[in-house]
């Protein structure tokens, strides 16, 4: 049974911070498709189009029929642990610091036998559920979990290395003025975050839900205006060394395309918050988080960007907002590249129309702020990096992956009705 995680004690400032080291990150290009699926929490293996054989490790050719037509498909997570060992030495520095480490061979129901990390609650030779996740190096790996939930399962040391569980971590929510920011604060507090810092710009201006927000246990209201470099730097100076998860809830959304606008004032406001705001946060909080990727049970672990799915492909109805979201999405990838090697994951949540005032005329289905908050918490607990939320977003992402050029045509067609 997993020992419940103990609340981390206050950090001794005289002690040296343990620097992030990484599990092996080198992979073949083929294996990156496994990683891409793992970043979404999906276990995908290669399947031969000609003979349906499922193969692993990643190959260029089907070993059964020599077809070159292998594609990545989601497979059953079921399997059986057929052998296991607990490593007590490793030649890799990252693992050496974390011994003992349990691994095993799993015969997947899908066919292949695979190596996987093994959860402490898995019994010898039992049925397991094999999940695919990204590890601290950002590469996809498999882990065998007990088939059924066990007590304190998420606290398993090896599983927690793959997840970004908010339990006992300190979270910064960058904008608490909105229903979204407040729902996020409540969800993180409920998930066991030890502190939820909530940024509020221009605190003298009243806002709905302020009293309830301040009343959530663990919430600390902090002055933060992400359009103001000094404000962002001042807050980073105060809490940057203990921000384990940063969730950027700030957004600026206005309907309309470029032609409908007079000048660039609105577009500038959009960029100021959606793009430059993110950049200010990265510059102020990024280095500290990057340094603290291996800093104990409450290490820095995740940076969450909430983005409109139209960041992928512009929708003229919210044309300039889409453009600023696209800029933010691109910058988020830059951030992922810059945090590579730190063990801090960048999670992008692409969501469909949010149920809030600036998107009021849009028809359902919409994503409620509460639902978005819950999804962020669950995705952190699962250690995901790419999340798509809501039927609209799922639809757009699916079309985008099928053919981004066709999606571009679909989104720029003459709108009927």
């Amino acid at each position: 049974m997993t020992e419940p995680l103990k609340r981390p004690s206050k950090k001794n400032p005289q002690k040296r911070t343990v620097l992030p080291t990484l599990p092996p990150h080198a992979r073949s290009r083929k294996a990156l498709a496994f990683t891409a699926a793992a970043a979404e929490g999906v276990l995908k293996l290669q399947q031969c189009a000609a003979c349906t054989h499922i193969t692993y490790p990643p190959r260029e050719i089907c070993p059964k029929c020599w077809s070159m037509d292998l594609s990545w498909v989601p497979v059953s997570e079921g399997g059986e642990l057929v052998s296991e060992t607990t490593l007590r030495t490793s030649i890799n520095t990252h693992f050496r610091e974390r011994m003992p480490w349990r691994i095993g061979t799993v015969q997947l129901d899908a066919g292949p036998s695979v190596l996987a990390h093994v959860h402490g609650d898995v019994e010898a030779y039992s049925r397991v559920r094999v999940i695919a996740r990204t590890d601290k190096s950002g590469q996809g790996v498999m882990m065998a979990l007990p088939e059924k939930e066990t007590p304190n399962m998420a606290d398993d040391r090896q599983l927690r290395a793959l997840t970004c569980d908010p339990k006992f971590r300190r979270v910064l929510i960058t904008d608490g003025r909105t229903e979204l920011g407040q729902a996020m604060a409540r969800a993180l507090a409920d998930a066991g975050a030890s502190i939820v810092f909530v940024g509020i710009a221009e605190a003298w201006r009243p806002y709905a839900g302020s009293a309830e927000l301040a009343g959530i246990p663990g919430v600390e209201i902090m002055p933060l205006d992400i359009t103001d470099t000094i404000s962002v730097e001042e807050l980073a100076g105060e809490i940057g060394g203990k921000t384990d998860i940063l969730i950027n809830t700030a957004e600026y959304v206005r309907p309309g395309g470029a032609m409908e606008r007079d000048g660039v004032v609105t577009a500038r406001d959009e960029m100021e918050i959606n793009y430059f705001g993110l950049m200010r946060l990265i510059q102020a909080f990024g280095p500290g988080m990057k340094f603290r990727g291996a800093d104990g049970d409450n290490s820095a672990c995740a940076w969450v960007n909430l983005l409109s799915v139209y960041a992928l492909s512009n929708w003229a109805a919210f044309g300039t907002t889409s453009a600023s979201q696209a800029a933010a999405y691109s910058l988020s990838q830059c951030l992922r590249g810059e945090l590579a090697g730190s063990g801090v994951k960048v999670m992008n949540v692409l969501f469909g129309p949010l149920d809030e005032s600036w998107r009021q005329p849009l028809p359902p289905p919409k994503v409620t702020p509460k639902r978005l908050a819950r999804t962020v918490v669950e995705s952190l607990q699962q250690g995901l990096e790419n999340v798509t939320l809501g039927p609209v977003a799922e639809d757009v992402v699916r079309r985008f992956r099928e053919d981004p050029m066709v999606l571009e045509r679909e989104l720029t067609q003459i709108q009927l009705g």
Partner: protein
Amino acid sequence: MSQKHTRRRTSYDGIVVTVPVSVAYERYSPEPAHWWLGRALSKLGESADIGAGDIDGLCASSFTLFPDTAVGLSQHFGLTPRWLDHIPTGGASGVIALRRAARAVQSGDANVVACIAGDTNHVDSFRSMLTSFSRFSQDASYPYGSGGPNGSFALMTRDYMNTYDVTREDFGKLCVAQRKNALNFPTALMKSPLSLEQYLDARRISDPITLYDCVMPCAGAEGYLVMSEDRARELRLPFARVLSTIERHNAFPDDAVQIRGGWALDKDEFWDMAGVAPCDIDLLQTYDDYPVVIAMQFEDLGFCEKGTAGEFIRANTFTTDGSFPHNTSGGQLSVGQAGAAGGYLGIVEAIRQLTGGAADNAVAGAKLAAVAGFGMINFDRGLCSAAAILAGEDA
């Protein structure tokens, strides 16, 4: 893996192996692999009293020779061979080199082939070798704790012990016997006796594997010559004949965990070709990085039934002075694992035993030796298996 179209194989009549040389191993060496391979070659020259002009075939194996291969060695060593091979099969390279070289000599493509294997061991060599060992290991095994071979063999050992009647004491007996043999082998890196208690109480490495199940990576080199019997007589070199050989790669790919090696596919042909039976063998050299693989070789080569290695171990001593002499120099477990030279250790020792070159650890009256090789954990299992039966000159 159908055998039905296999034609009857030509024998190795008239082909011999000779001049076994070992370059004393060192735990760490600042010298490059080229030095170790070069020293093996120069020892071959000294021992046979021949020079570059007499060697027209070169076969080399090494993990640490980068950026060179056997090609670069020809120029480095001042050889102008008309036959060249570079064999990347690790622990199976010694037997596989013999197969290749024997056919080259038999067909007249070469007269004298120098077979050499060697590796250096710098302080960080082993780690960097494992980091980029193979694509499959890079993608699918190294990221899981980076235990290297310890982890892979632990998984095999666990499964084997779970399936068959074999105990830690049985595996320990093999390691203890090899250490006893090594005490008579002057260049073994392990020089102190090992008791079963020490084996059982040793530091855990990767359950159920403990310290004395593991080989110690080191620097070293091995070599031998392949030539015609006539040539060996001209040069007055004591030699051994080649009675049969087998090799196999990626056998039983659908076994979830490796519990047998490719020998099991080829063992009938192996004994038929030699015209001898397992009970005729005077000494066996197995590939021994981890005792579980030794057990598989006992079974899969036919020295005992599958699943009965435990019983077989309990029934023999495996020492040079006892029953079923095995890994008579101490094997890699006690001599050290010098990279690809580990794949040559057994064959070189077998030639020594059959040519009167094994001094204090000689097996009395040894005439027939079997040698097996095993190599390359490409992902989760050893892909290469090989074996040979050698006979002394008068056998």
